[in-house]
C-alpha cells in the first residue's frame, strides 16, 4: 500500500506544481496587460517621450524598434541563408565543419551584454559609426545569426534526400537544386524561425545600450531623405528602442510617470511578441499549404 500512497502523493504534488506555474505565469501576463493596456492610447503610441514631466509617449522609440528590426533582418537573413545552405548542403564531415559548428554554438550562448560590448568596441569606436542604428543593427545581426543559421540548417536538413536526387537527376547543379527545390520546400520552417528571431530582436536591450545608444533625438517625420540628420531613415543617428527605453527610465528615475510609461511600453512589447509568435505559426502553415498544395481540402 505504501507505494500506492506514494503514487497518489506524487501525483497531487505534480498537479500542485503545474497549477502554481500556470498561476505564476498567468498572473505575470495579466499583470502586464492590466497595468499597461489602459496607458496604451493612440496618443501614447505616437508622441515623443518626455524626460522630466509626465504625459510623454513612446512614438520615436516604437519607430526606432521597428526600423532597427527591419535593418537587422535585412542584413542577417541573407547571411544566415547562405551559411545555413553551406552547412546543410556543402559542408563535409571533417574537423573544419565541426569547428564551425562549435563556433556557432558558442556564439549563440554568449551573454548579450558581451556581444553588445564587442559591438561597442568594433562598430561604435573602431569603425566610427558612433551610437547609431547601423551599429545596433550590426550587433543584432551578430546576436541573431547563430540561431537563424541553425534554424535554416535544420529546416533544410528535414527535406528528404529524394528531392535532391530528383533535382540532380534532372541535370540541375547542386546550387540550382538547393535554391529552386529544397529552399522553397523548407520555406515554411525557415519563415517561422525568422519571425521568431525577429521577436527576439525586438525585445533585446542589453546588446543595444552601448551600440544604438540611449537617446532618441527628435525626428522630422516629413523628411525621409536618409542623409538628413533628423530623418527617421538616417541610419547614423542614435536610436533608443522600446526595450532600452523601459530599462533607462526605470534605472534613472527622473521621469515622474516612469512606472506608467514602462507599464504601457511593456504591454506593447508583450503584444508585439504575441503577434510575432502567432504570425510565425500562421505564416508557417499558410506557406506550407501554398508551397505543397496540401491544404484546401474539398476545394
Amino acid at each position, binding site marked *: 500500500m505504501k507505494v500506492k500512497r506514494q503514487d497518489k502523493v506524487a501525483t497531487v504534488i505534480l498537479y500542485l506544481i503545474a497549477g502554481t506555474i500556470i498561476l505564476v505565469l498567468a498572473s505575470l501576463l495579466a499583470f502586464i496587460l492590466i497595468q499597461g493596456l489602459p496607458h496604451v492610447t493612440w496618443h501614447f503610441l505616437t508622441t515623443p517621450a518626455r524626460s522630466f514631466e509626465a504625459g510623454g509617449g513612446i512614438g520615436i522609440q516604437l519607430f526606432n524598434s521597428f526600423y532597427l528590426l527591419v535593418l537587422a533582418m535585412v542584413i542577417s537573413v541573407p547571411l544566415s541563408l547562405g551559411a545555413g545552405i553551406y552547412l546543410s548542403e556543402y559542408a563535409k564531415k571533417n574537423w573544419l565543419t565541426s569547428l*564551425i559548428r562549435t*563556433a556557432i554554438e558558442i556564439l549563440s550562448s554568449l551573454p548579450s551584454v558581451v556581444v553588445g560590448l564587442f559591438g561597442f568596441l568594433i562598430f561604435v569606436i573602431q569603425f566610427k559609426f558612433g551610437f547609431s542604428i547601423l551599429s545596433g543593427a550590426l550587433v543584432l545581426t551578430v546576436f541573431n545569426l547563430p540561431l537563424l543559421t541553425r534554424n535554416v540548417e535544420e529546416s533544410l536538413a528535414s527535406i528528404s534526400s529524394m528531392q535532391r536526387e530528383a533535382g540532380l537527376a534532372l541535370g540541375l547543379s547542386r546550387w540550382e537544386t538547393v535554391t529552386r527545390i529544397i529552399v522553397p520546400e523548407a520555406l515554411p520552417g525557415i519563415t517561422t524561425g525568422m519571425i521568431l528571431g525577429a521577436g527576439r530582436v525586438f525585445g533585446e536591450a*542589453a546588446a543595444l545600450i552601448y551600440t544604438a545608444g540611449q537617446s532618441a533625438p527628435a525626428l522630422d517625420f516629413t523628411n525621409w531623405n536618409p542623409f538628413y540628420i533628423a530623418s527617421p531613415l538616417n541610419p547614423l543617428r542614435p536610436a533608443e528602442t522600446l526595450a532600452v527605453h523601459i530599462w533607462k527610465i526605470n534605472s534613472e528615475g527622473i521621469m515622474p510617470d516612469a512606472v506608467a510609461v514602462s507599464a504601457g511600453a511593456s504591454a506593447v512589447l508583450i503584444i508585439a511578441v504575441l503577434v510575432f509568435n502567432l504570425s510565425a505559426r500562421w505564416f508557417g502553415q499558410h506557406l506550407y499549404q501554398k508551397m505543397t498544395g496540401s491544404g484546401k481540402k474539398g476545394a
Partner: protein
Amino acid sequence: MDPIRESLLKKSHQAKLERRGRLLGLFCISLIVVVVAAIFYFVASRGLATFYHDKINLWDFLTKQAWNPGTKDSHGIPEVGALPMIVGSFLVTIFAALVATPFAIGAAIFMTEISPRRGMQILKPVTELLVGIPSVVYGFIGLTVVVPVIRYLFGGTGFGILAGTFVLFVMILPTVTSMSVDALRAVPRHYREASLALGATRWQTIYKVVLRSSLPGLLTAIVFGMARAFGEALAVQMVIGNAALLPHNLVSPASTLTSILTMGIGNTIMGSLENNALWSLALILLLMSLVFNLLIRLIGRKGALKP
C-alpha cells in the same frame, strides 16, 4: 572556333553558378567564424590589459573585496577586487537554478506523463510565449512587484540577491521547462510500458525509469538555464541594488558581473584602468559562458554513450 568544341572546353553556366553559390555560402559561414574569433580576441585583449598593462595581480583581482577602481589602497595598488560581483553572479545563478529545477521538471512530468492533453493545451503555449518575453519586462515586474513585496516582508530596501533570484527564476523557468519536456519525450514509450507491466505504479515508473533515462537531457536543460541566468544583464541589474559589496544576507543590495558592467562601461574612459577592469569582468563572463558550453557538451557525450 567550332561552337560544340567551345561549349565543351568552357565552363558551363551551371558550373559557374555552382561555384559562385558555394563560395557565397562559404563566405557567410566564414564571416560567422571570424566574428566569433574577433569577439574573443577583442574582449580578451581589453580584459587582459588589467593584468599586463596595469600590473594587477590576477589572484588579487579574483579574491579581493574592495571595488573602487578609481582609488588606491595603502600600498598604492588600485582597489579592483571583483569578488563581490563574482559571488553575486554565482549566488543568483545557483539559487535561481535551485528554485527553478523542481518546478520545471515537475511541470515537464505533468505535461508528458500525467496529463498530456491538458498540459499541451494550456502549459505549452504559455511557456512558449514566455520564452519570448523581453528580459527588461521581467526586470520591470521585479522592480514594481517583487522588490516592494520583499521590502514589506523583510525590511531594508528590497533590492538584493533574493529579488534577483526571483526574477531569474521566473525568467529561466519557461526555457528549462520546454527543454525538459523535450528530454522526457525522448524516452522511448516501451520503457514506460515495460515498467508498468512489471507492476510499478506511475510514480515509480516516472521516478525509477523515465527520470533516470532522461537525466542527461534534464541536466542539459538546467545548465542551459544557468548559462542564461549568469549572462542576463538588465533584468538583474534593475532589482539587485548594484552595490559592489559582498552580500551579508539575501536582502542586502549586491551586484553581479553583468550589472556592474552595464552600469560602468559608459562612465569610464577607454584605456583607463577603470575601463580595463570592467573589460576583465566581461572576460570572466565570456569564459564562464564557455564553461557552461563545455559542460553541456560533456553531459551530451556522457548521455550519448549509454545504450
